[in-house]
């Protein structure tokens, strides 16, 4: 799962907040099954079981209903979406409905034939994630042997005529290898590279003390990224985003609650953000029981944090409230206990110290070796299993 920069290119907006805008993005998390076990995964700890997943008909209904209310960008994500045998069918249907179809994949489960099948079905774009620049570190973080497969699949995707889009999720264990990652990307002739900062949700939050880089590491990586941006200008586009823990201002999570982004989980639960499932006091409706139109426009959960009316201080009177929407509701809840609080990554939050303290811990020498051991993301470690 490497979708934390899904909204990065989005530069639209401008809707009056009084009027509910249509969803433009549908994230279809078709399964939580994944051959990889990345400890930075933003999936919930309670992974949805296979037997709870929507069937093909269920997903076709989701695609149809979301398109009807406006969604134009579609991300197939997970888990590993390739685990679904009906992915080709879903892609074909989505393309016919007029979606721009994105596959967000680890590359595991792909082969040249499947790339060709997806291309034939009209898949518009395939993004492959890597865990690091070397086989040893990549395979350690992924929890499985996958590095060579990823390289082969990156080449196969490009050979099919797609732009090659690579994603590296960055954290303490690999952030010192950013130069190596960009060398690898250049060697593979990537067109776009995302150095995606870990979002501390789900499994990543559980492993935060092992994964949060120090400020010094972030600054060094940023300098490397800028150097490569210059070096590869016009050939390979490189995106680097500083983690919100070190920014002093929260990111506009999902571009505002219920404003652009609609996620549907493997079991059919519709969410304004793929990490929102655990927020207290909200009942997220299932597409088996309600139309997406009702869920988007009418359901109490999607209206809970729309606009600015729900905000407490310091957000309520802040000049930046319509720029960052108070940050991430999930992060506010997980770190402060109340989803209505300002995202504590904001320096204006009265509880900002929960973030600065974690960042300070990341500065301690030898910190990562004394932190709790990494918990890899797999069904055995999932409380629901």
């Amino acid at each position, binding site marked *: 799962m490497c979708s934390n920069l899904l909204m990065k290119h989005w530069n639209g907006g401008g809707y009056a907040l009084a009027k509910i805008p*249509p969803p433009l993005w549908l994230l279809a998390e078709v399964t939580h099954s994944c051959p990889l076990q990345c400890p930075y995964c933003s999936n919930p700890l309670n992974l949805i079981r296979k037997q709870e997943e929507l069937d093909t008909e269920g997903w076709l209904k989701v695609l149809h209903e979301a398109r009807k209310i406006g969604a134009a960008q579609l991300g197939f994500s997970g888990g590993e979406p390739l685990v679904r045998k009906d992915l080709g069918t879903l892609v074909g249907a989505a393309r016919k409905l007029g979606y*721009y179809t994105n596959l967000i994949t680890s590359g595991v489960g792909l082969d040249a034939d499947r790339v060709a099948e997806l291309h034939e079905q009209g898949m518009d*774009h395939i993004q492959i994630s890597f865990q690091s620049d070397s086989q040893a570190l990549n395979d350690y973080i992924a929890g499985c042997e996958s590095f060579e497969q990823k390289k082969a699949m990156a080449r196969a995707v490009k050979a099919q005529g797609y*732009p090659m889009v690579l994603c590296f999720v960055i954290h303490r264990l690999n952030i010192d290898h950013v130069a190596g990652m960009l060398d690898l990307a250049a060697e593979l002739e990537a067109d776009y590279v995302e150095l995606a900062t870990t979002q501390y949700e789900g499994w990543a939050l559980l492993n935060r003390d092992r994964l949060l880089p120090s400020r010094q590491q972030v600054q060094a990586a940023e300098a490397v990224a800028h150097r490569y941006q210059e070096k590869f200008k016009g050939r390979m586009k490189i995106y680097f985003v500083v983690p919100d823990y070190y920014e002093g201002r929260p990111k506009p999570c999902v571009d505002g609650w219920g404003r652009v982004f609609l996620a549907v989980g493997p079991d059919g639960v519709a969410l304004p953000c793929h990490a929102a499932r655990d927020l207290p006091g909200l009942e997220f409706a299932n597409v088996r029981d309600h139309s997406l139109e009702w869920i988007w426009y009418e359901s109490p959960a999607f209206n809970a944090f729309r606009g600015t009316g729900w905000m407490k201080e310091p957000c309520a009177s802040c000049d930046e409230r319509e720029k960052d929407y108070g940050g991430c509701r999930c992060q506010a809840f997980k770190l402060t206990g109340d989803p209505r609080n300002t995202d504590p990554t904001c320096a204006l939050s009265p509880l900002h110290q929960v973030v600065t303290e974690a960042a300070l811990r990341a500065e301690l020498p030898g910190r990562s070796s004394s932190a709790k051991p990494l918990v890899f993301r797999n069904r055995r470690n999932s409380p629901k299993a």
Partner: protein
Amino acid sequence: MAEADLNAVPRLTPGYRLQWEEVQDCHVLLYPEGMVQLNGPAGAILEQVDGQRTLAEVIRTLEQAFGETDLSADVLEFADEALERGWIRLG
């Protein structure tokens, strides 16, 4: 970066798609994990970009369609911006 001239043949960048979106009531440009909402003139110009015709021909078509006499400066200015933003390539 090359500047757009009248003899250049513009085409959409590979991976980019232009389409009319009823719900948004505008043309949009779709690309990997992103979307740009286009205003009327931008949509009208990009609709004529087919990888076959030169910018001069695109301008002529637009002038006829909109009953205008000189759209050259506007279209060239837009083409430069679209080029800069990576939406189109010139052949």
